[in-house]
């Protein structure tokens, strides 16, 4: 028997979705608040015919992902903020080697060891500087356990399509919460990977997976080619949810768990007669610039809400070319904003019109 709906914890759902998406190599190292993901993989991956390995460190884990991905296997690692920082070097190597993989970041408060409660303070890291050098990774921002399931499979497909790492940027609240989910039927087939170093069998020449280019012109050319690909990614992959934005005079921009809180506040604002709407980026890189502009076409002001000191707010301002006032409300260090606090801010901005 198969149930149509299951109640799952976010971390478990991420793991189950990855196995169903064909992930057969998981390499991790425990850290709160994502540990249930690794624990689930430890129990289930072998049964799916894949490899689960708890590495000796985050750095080892990401390099194991690099090796598995180079051989053409769908591979994944997961961690939380401080652990993701440790993976940065390996992610840069994978980007420089044009290798697909999925990295899960169940964010917690920072900087440093920070805390273990939810946070969104790794936005800059994920979208701007996930390692050294000129490169980008795909960044998905789920806001529910169901969306985590859907985005894991999307992340694997898109990473394969463009041969680049993809990240699911979640947070401790999403990782730890329980919600009903449905696992969609997904196609088992994965794209051919003629570039993979998986044994030429004497039938083709060697495939070389590498990120070292000692001749400047050759390295520049490889980066240029990658950035041409990024332009295609920007055109085709940016995604956002617009909620009540058609007539919105004030648009709240928020992603992830914060967007759930913001939606609650937008509903209360509407009930109080304020024309509020919500723009929720589902991809953070590429940032949904066009969707944001469209959502704000009738707005006088934008309010960006984050569990950080203000990071996505930069992208909101850039997308709008500073054509409208962009306000910011942030909580950090593991504090989750309350719907009432966001509503208060909406009223304050509305009152200033």
């Amino acid at each position, binding site marked *: 028997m198969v149930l149509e709906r299951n109640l799952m914890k976010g971390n478990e759902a991420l793991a189950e979705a990855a196995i169903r998406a064909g992930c057969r190599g998981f390499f991790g190292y425990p850290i709160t608040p994502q540990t249930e993901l690794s624990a689930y993989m430890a129990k289930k991956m072998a049964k799916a015919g894949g490899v689960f390995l708890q590495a000796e460190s985050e750095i080892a884990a990401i390099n194991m992902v690099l090796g598995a991905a180079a051989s053409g296997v769908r591979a994944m690692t997961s961690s939380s903020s401080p652990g993701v920082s440790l993976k940065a070097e390996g992610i840069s190597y994978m980007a420089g080697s044009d290798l697909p993989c999925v990295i899960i970041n169940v964010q917690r408060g920072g900087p440093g060891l920070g805390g273990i*409660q939810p946070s969104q303070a790794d936005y800059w890291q994920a979208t701007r500087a996930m390692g050294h050098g000129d490169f980008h990774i795909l960044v998905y921002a789920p806001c529910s356990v169901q969306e985590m399931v859907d985005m894991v499979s999307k992340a694997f497909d898109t990473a394969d399509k463009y041969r680049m790492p993809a990240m699911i940027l979640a947070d401790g609240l999403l990782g730890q919460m329980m919600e009903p989910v449905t696992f969609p039927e997904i196609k088992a087939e994965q794209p051919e990977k003629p570039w993979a170093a998986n044994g030429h069998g004497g039938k083709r020449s060697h495939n070389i997976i590498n990120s070292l280019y000692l001749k400047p012109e050759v390295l520049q050319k490889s980066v240029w080619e990658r950035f041409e690909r990024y332009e295609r990614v920007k055109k085709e992959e940016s995604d956002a949810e617009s909620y009540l934005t058609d007539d919105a005079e004030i648009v709240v921009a928020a992603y992830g768990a914060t967007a759930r809180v913001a939606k609650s506040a937008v509903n209360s604002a509407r009930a109080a007669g304020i024309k509020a709407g919500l723009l929720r980026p589902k991809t953070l890189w590429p940032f949904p610039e066009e969707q944001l502009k469209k959502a704000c076409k009738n707005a006088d002001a934008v309010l960006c809400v984050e569990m950080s000191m203000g990071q996505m707010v930069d992208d909101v301002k850039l997308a709008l070319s500073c054509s409208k006032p962009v306000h910011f409300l942030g909580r950090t260090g593991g504090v989750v904003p309350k719907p*009432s606090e966001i509503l208060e801010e909406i009223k304050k901005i509305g009152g200033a019109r």
Partner: protein
Amino acid sequence: MKKINIITGHYGSGKTNIAVNMAVELAKQGKKTAIVDLDIVNPYFRSADFEELFSGCGVELVKPLYANTNLDIPAISFDLERIANDDGYVIIDVGGDDDGAVALGRYAGFLSLFGDDLDFFYVVNKFRYLKGEEDEALGLLWKIEAASRLRATKIINNSNLGRETTPQDVLSSIGFAEKIAKESGLPLEFSTAPREIACPLLDGKVKYVDIYVKPVWDE
């Protein structure tokens, strides 16, 4: 109700919500009640989060001294034996799975002394299992008993799909729970349903519970 009430189960089965309901209910009846947060494997959604609720209705909350602080480590800093020897009811909210039950095992010898004055509840939620089959729930029961070195005495059916739970979901889970009860040889104490879906279909078949454990956007 027995003096000592231990709540165990799969993590996410709704143990904390059951424990909070039991404590609040006892307090409303004017009974001296203590709730013990023995969940030292998970820092989120635990009994220690409900300090205000408990102090408002006179339930004594016993939690690791540094729960939800910078020094929150998997350690127990309170004297469970003294608390259990005091007058009044004790509800022990144990961490999820056999991992969480290890901490309970520390007190196995002491708790066994309560004999018939102790209930060890195993909470099940049909929707926590991908196939919704009984075997997985039974397997976990045995693992929890082994880790805690105590025997379960009763089953609680807390099958739910969070906010989407319908009366039909609850009704469809009763057979699942009865089968676990039959195969484990333990009685099914009750099935629960969120109070907000109360209806004639469920009246008399379930125990209605209040939902205390919920995300911030449902405030």
